[in-house]
């Protein structure tokens, strides 16, 4: 008896929260599949960056993770997806919504209430959460995303960046295990984007929410990530630790926006200067450069 318990615990520890194998998906009327043989494993608590050129299937993959594919989009799906130990094709979108929150690329069309707090409450209302709990969770989500002061405003009168924060709060209020964010900073200036990344980083670190972030601006986002997936033409071409992925030759060829610090490292390496590690952001690069400079002087 004890043995079985022990075993199941160790299995649970290494159990992936998202697991796809041999995923092939073609949109209805599409000639070529938008996802080709996608096999991924994402562990609980990971902060994953999903990147790749435009039209490579990032949004399509996000739709698979919360069941929009195959329940909302028909079309042809092969392979298997398991999310939070649920088989996606066998569970409805609203069951999956308790575990996976999806923030869409376009903030405008995912907010539909007349006030921000009503919008944030929408998912909880659908789940039938009692009103007192709902109030507390809505306020909490508003505070976590730093938009508590906007709670009575109309969502369509906010700026793009504020709307993106509201969209994140909407999903956060449902307390999902996994948050999938499809380019949540596309409407933001670099500073605003940085703030959003900090918020998401906090959610990941403090609450242990597994984060999957679709992003082109790797310079800013990669600081928090521990896992990077690069897609191209529907396929996963790179999958691993940020440093390994950014430093690989194929990342450069696909045109992934490799962080400037990593590019600096590569340039230095070509001219014969070796840094001790591969930096992903400017602070790290500064430190490593200082190390090298003092070493050379000494």
């Amino acid at each position: 008896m004890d043995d079985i318990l022990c075993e199941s615990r160790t299995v649970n520890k290494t159990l992936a929260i998202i697991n796809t194998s041999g995923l092939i998906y073609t949109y209805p009327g599409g000639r070529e599949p938008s996802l080709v043989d996608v096999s991924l494993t994402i562990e609980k608590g990971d902060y994953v960056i999903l990147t790749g050129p435009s039209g490579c299937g990032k949004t399509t993959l996000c739709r698979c993770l919360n069941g929009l594919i195959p329940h909302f989009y028909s079309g042809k799906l092969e392979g298997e997806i398991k999310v939070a130990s649920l088989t996606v094709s066998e569970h409805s979108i609203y069951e999956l919504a308790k575990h996976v929150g999806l923030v869409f690329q376009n903030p405008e069309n995912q907010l539909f209430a007349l006030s921000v707090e009503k919008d944030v409450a929408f998912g909880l209302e659908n789940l039938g959460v009692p009103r007192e709990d709902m109030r507390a969770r809505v306020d909490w989500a508003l505070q976590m995303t730093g938009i508590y002061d906007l709670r009575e405003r109309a969502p369509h009168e906010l700026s793009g960046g504020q709307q993106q924060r509201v969209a994140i709060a909407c999903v956060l209020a449902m307390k999902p295990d996994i948050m999938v964010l499809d380019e949540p900073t596309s409407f933001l200036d670099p500073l605003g984007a940085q703030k959003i990344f900090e918020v998401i980083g906090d959610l990941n670190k403090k609450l242990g929410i597994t984060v999957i972030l679709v992003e082109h601006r790797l310079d800013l986002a990669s600081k928090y990530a521990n896992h990077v997936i690069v897609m191209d033409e529907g396929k996963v071409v790179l999958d691993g630790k940020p440093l390994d992925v950014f430093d690989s030759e194929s990342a450069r060829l696909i045109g992934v926006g490799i962080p400037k610090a990593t590019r600096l490292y590569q340039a230095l390496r070509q001219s014969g200067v070796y840094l001790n590690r591969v930096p992903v952001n400017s602070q790290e690069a500064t430190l490593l450069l200082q190390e090298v400079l003092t070493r050379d002087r000494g």
Partner: protein
Amino acid sequence: MSVFEGFRFRRVLSPIHQLDPRVKFLYVCAVFGIAVMFNQLLPLILLFLIQLPFVLAAGVQKEWIRSMKGASFLALMIFLFNFLFTYFYREYPIFPPSSSLLEYSLAMTLRFIVLVESFSIFFLTTSPDRLGLALEQSHVPYEFCFAFTTAVRFVPVLAEEAQTIMDAQKARGLELERGNFIKRIRNYIPILIPLIVSAIRRSLELAEAMESRAWGATNKRTNLYVLKIERGDYILAVISVGMLILAVYIWLFMREQIPSLIPLITAQNV
């Protein structure tokens, strides 16, 4: 664009705004009933004046005057039609014998104005949000309430989009104000088609977002807000019902005694 400004409800805090929309609706119905009951000038003038304190208490004078101005053209038409038709067809049956032609036409016009007045008070002081909530709590299926609030929410967005498309097409040389009537209508096709396509795309994205936030998870949906009947609501309900009872009483027993105003005024002047 200014046409759509009226759809934007401004959040104001006043005792009237706080009232339960259901009770306010009862009040509108009471006013409606009374206005239809009487066709003499005096009770309708009273009914018009009784409502003014509501407008002032809600602090919506400006918007209210604007909506009354909007109704003034129709009111004028109603006056003219009543006056001319009853003038040419004197044997018109429901004509109260004691009042003059002018007074009768004025009363009909005022009846219309009173109706517009009460409806505009209702819509100017009720946020679409609370109206949706009132519908929901009156056991209207949630899908309808949601459709209603979403429609209100997207009117300004679509208006803005129409403007953008219009500007874009004009910049490409589309001339809207040219040709005869039919031609002008056809000029709008290049604006309508992109507008419809984008509205459909928008609604699909909306549906996707709703599904992703557990739409339809349970049929015991809860709500962040709840409407509670409070003291002010009881007062308004009592006022409405009281007015209605009084009106019915007067209508039943004292209808013939209501003086007509114009002979009264002219008699004093002489």
